[in-house]
């Protein structure tokens, strides 16, 4: 990895003029990966325009250029099977695409025009605005209870901070947005000081220099100073139940943590996550206790970093770095009759983890897992490039070395101390997506047991544990449960 910038922590609000940065992974592959990053995102949305950063990026990636209509861009990309996608998170916006070396000049010419000479056509704008509104209304609110629950959790925890809205914004704000709003955001935030040019593969020797020269047309402004993200502490356990007509109950719950990549306790918490609930893996502890032994649902996982679209992805997408992260448990949809029990079971397991810690055997195995699994995370050049850009952002060495070295030095005591320090089983924000919200509320706040019925015999130790679980007090008071009709979410 070559990083052409001093490793200053970009997290600091650097004042003064800063140049564009580059991250390159030159190689022999005929595939050339582009990740063109702007260190700006939804946290820079004006208060009355949530979704502006997202819509601006979507317009650049999904609209025409000064000289080409959108249809002409699509036609040019079509025979070379290429595209330019955009991803906007709170702190970072990335434009990504891959081309075969055969088609590099044609592809780059399109990318350059799309990002540096956008067409800003009204009909493109209307189409992209509609798409964004529909992705909120139908894609998220209508068709994906799990992602909906996760995003409501983030929105609830970060209310009042610059992360306080979903990156795609709200429907009413999007409806009011104008093309001039987008142009203004572009002018202000698409600057050389916010730019990281990421490039991997067998591109020609002079290609990067040409790119730098081209992107030097962006204004050379100061980096925008950004406010610290300080979410309000969760002072007692509380719940939001998003009510909708759905078959089953999806949960996400958690709380902010003061640990991110680069912080001393990050490797310890990453190990904890890999033990408790590695994403979409059957070896995780929660998966074993909830799905494997009890057959309650499809899977149960834990996170210490933001991980959108987890139902479609096996590995986390790069380039969504955040200076503030949460600890989160994701319980996949549960049959309504088992819903109250399952949440209690997840709390029970979290309690147990904090109280008992990880065993020496689990610690050693998870250590070995992580030291090898990082290679899987960066198995493509495109992913490696994404991780390298994130490492620049967090001010850490390349991700694989950072993890391998950090994990190698860890002791069991450090991990269990980090668990006790950063995790807790009270003062938790719960989000459920469910039909019959009032009924679920009564089951969660009540002191009466909420037992589970199985379709098969279970071992005696599990049944004995269930007796403890079914009456576990979640610490939820009726006044701390808010029921929100789905039509109001992200409206």
């Amino acid at each position: 990895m070559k990083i052409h910038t001093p490793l200053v922590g970009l997290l600091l609000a650097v004042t003064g003029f800063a140049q564009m940065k580059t991250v390159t992974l030159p190689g022999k592959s005929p595939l050339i990966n582009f990740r063109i990053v702007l260190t700006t995102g939804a946290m820079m949305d004006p208060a009355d325009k949530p979704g502006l950063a997202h819509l601006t990026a979507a317009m650049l990636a999904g609209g025409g250029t000064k000289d080409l209509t959108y249809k002409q861009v699509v036609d040019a990309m079509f025979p070379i099977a290429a595209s330019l996608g955009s991803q906007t998170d709170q702190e970072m916006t990335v434009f990504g695409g891959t081309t075969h070396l055969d088609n590099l000049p044609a592809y780059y010419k399109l990318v350059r025009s799309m990002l540096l000479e956008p067409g800003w056509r009204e009909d493109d704008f209307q189409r992209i605005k509609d798409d964004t509104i529909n992705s909120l209304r139908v894609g998220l609110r209508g068709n994906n209870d799990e992602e909906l629950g996760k995003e409501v959790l983030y929105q609830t925890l970060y209310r009042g901070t610059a992360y306080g809205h979903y990156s795609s914004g709200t429907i009413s704000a999007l409806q009011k947005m104008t093309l001039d709003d987008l142009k203004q955001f572009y002018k202000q935030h698409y600057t050389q000081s916010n730019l990281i040019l990421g490039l991997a593969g067998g591109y020609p020797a002079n290609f990067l220099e040409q790119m730098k020269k081209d992107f030097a047309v962006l204004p050379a402004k100061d980096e925008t100073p950004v406010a610290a993200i300080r979410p309000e502490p969760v002072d007692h356990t509380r719940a939001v139940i998003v009510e909708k007509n759905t078959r089953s109950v999806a949960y996400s719950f958690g709380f902010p943590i003061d640990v991110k990549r680069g912080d001393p306790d990050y490797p310890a918490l990453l190990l904890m996550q890999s033990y408790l609930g590695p994403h979409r893996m059957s070896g995780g502890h929660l998966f074993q206790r909830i799905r494997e032994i009890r057959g309650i649902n499809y899977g149960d996982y834990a996170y210490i970093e933001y991980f959108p679209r987890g139902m479609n992805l096996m590995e986390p997408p790069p380039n969504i770095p955040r200076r503030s992260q949460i600890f989160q448990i994701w319980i996949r949809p549960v049959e309504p009759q088992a819903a109250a029990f399952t949440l209690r079971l997840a709390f029970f397991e979290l309690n147990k983890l904090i109280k008992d810690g990880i065993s020496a055997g689990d610690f050693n195995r998870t250590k070995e897992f992580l030291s090898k699994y990082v290679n899987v995370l960066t198995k493509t050049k495109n992913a490696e490039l994404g991780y390298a850009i994130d490492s620049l952002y967090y001010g850490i060495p390349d991700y694989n070395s950072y993890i391998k070295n950090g994990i190698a030095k860890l002791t069991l005591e450090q991990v269990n101390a980090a668990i006790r320090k950063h995790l807790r089983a009270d003062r938790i924000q719960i989000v459920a997506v469910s039909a019959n919200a009032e009924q679920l509320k009564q089951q969660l706040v009540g002191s009466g047991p909420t037992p589970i019925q199985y379709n098969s015999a279970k071992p005696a130790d599990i049944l004995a544990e269930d007796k403890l679980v079914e009456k576990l007090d979640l610490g939820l008071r009726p006044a701390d449960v808010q029921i929100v009709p789905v039509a109001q979410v992200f409206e």
Partner: protein
Amino acid sequence: MLWKLVCLVFTAGSIAAVSAQVKTFPFAYTQQDLSNGLRLVTIPTDSPNLVSIYVVVQTGSRNEVEAGKSGFAHLFEHMMFRGTAKYPPEKYNQVLQRAGAASNAFTSDDLTAYYTTFSKEDLPAILAMEADRFQTLKYTPEIFKTETGAVLGEYNKNSSDPEEKLDEVLHDTAFDRHTYKHTTMGFLKDVQDMPSQYDYSLKFFDRYYRPEYTTIVVAGDVDPKNVRALVDQYWGGWKRGSYHPDIPVEPAQQGARENHIDWPSPTLPLIDIAFHGPAYSDTSKEWAALDALATLAFSRNSDLYEKLVVLEQKVDTLSASMAQSVDPNLWEVEARVKSASDLPYVRAQILETIQRFQNQPVAADKLDAAKSRRRYAFTMGLDNSQSVAAAVARYVALRRSPDTIDKLYSLYSQLTPADIQAAARKYLTENNRTIVTLTGAAEGGGK
């Protein structure tokens, strides 16, 4: 990885041909058959230290021939993680963890595939453990019932998506006899009845989890000789089976069919227009022609996409596909419409577009662009050991060999506008057509 055009290298006796023709699949590979019928495909790639294994069983929802047993191939995908005497689930997971492995499985119409990506030094341990579960899987009725709960959980997590329902109703409406009538998840009533089907599950395993149904694809930082020796050692003793399913043949459809779904929640209207198409073929041009037609008529650079999505903005997604299946399956166009009042208009536009392709040959330059796109899209996807093994697994389910990839792309390169027109005329007829629409409880949308 450095790609170049290569020749096939076959090292085993079952297939002896060595071809010097230009290849779309850019890797040299070995393909070998064990005497028990198991096939091994090994593909060294430039993926330092990483190996991906796909164990492909040529059994999917297509094989679920008995009434009330839909969803069993998929259920079996779950049962395969329930352990053996030698590797109970806990030990199985520990071996995967020690290998830093990413591991999962999936089921489709024609296959069930089990995949693992890991560090190369763990190849013997992983191959030994996989061999064990394919040969000696063991689970109690209680464990079986518990796992059916996880399968119902999977049905539940899918059930909030109206497109899943649309697919379920489309296949149920379009097919009468063939097992493509049901989706891979199966009918809900069959999923709910799974807990009482323990004995049938044993029968299912006995029938299909056999070497003659199975191909192991290994890609990455490997030496084929070493892989072969390990596969001989751990998989060589697996006993061949004798079961041959009697897959019902779908009779020709007699007349257009329609169906409608009232979705209980607000969502955007959907329309799916489908026709019975041919089975996958690497020898006849018809399948490739219909696949190309789907791209030419309905992809992002098509005239209709420009009209409905870009200019009129009545539709927000439009796509078409020819199912890549062992038996004849559906060619479909699907659109998501912003307003239910536009459903009849969009339906008419799609049908008119199909008619236009039946009446006029496509321009040669457009066909060339579609051919170029398909070839680049395929080869650009082969950027790591896992994606290489995954791409091969998909074709292994159809023809049990990567050589079908080059045969298919060779057919593609020979496609003419007349081929496209002829396939459209033959298959996309009214008698052969099923249309399913879906509308939400209260209409929403961005307009």
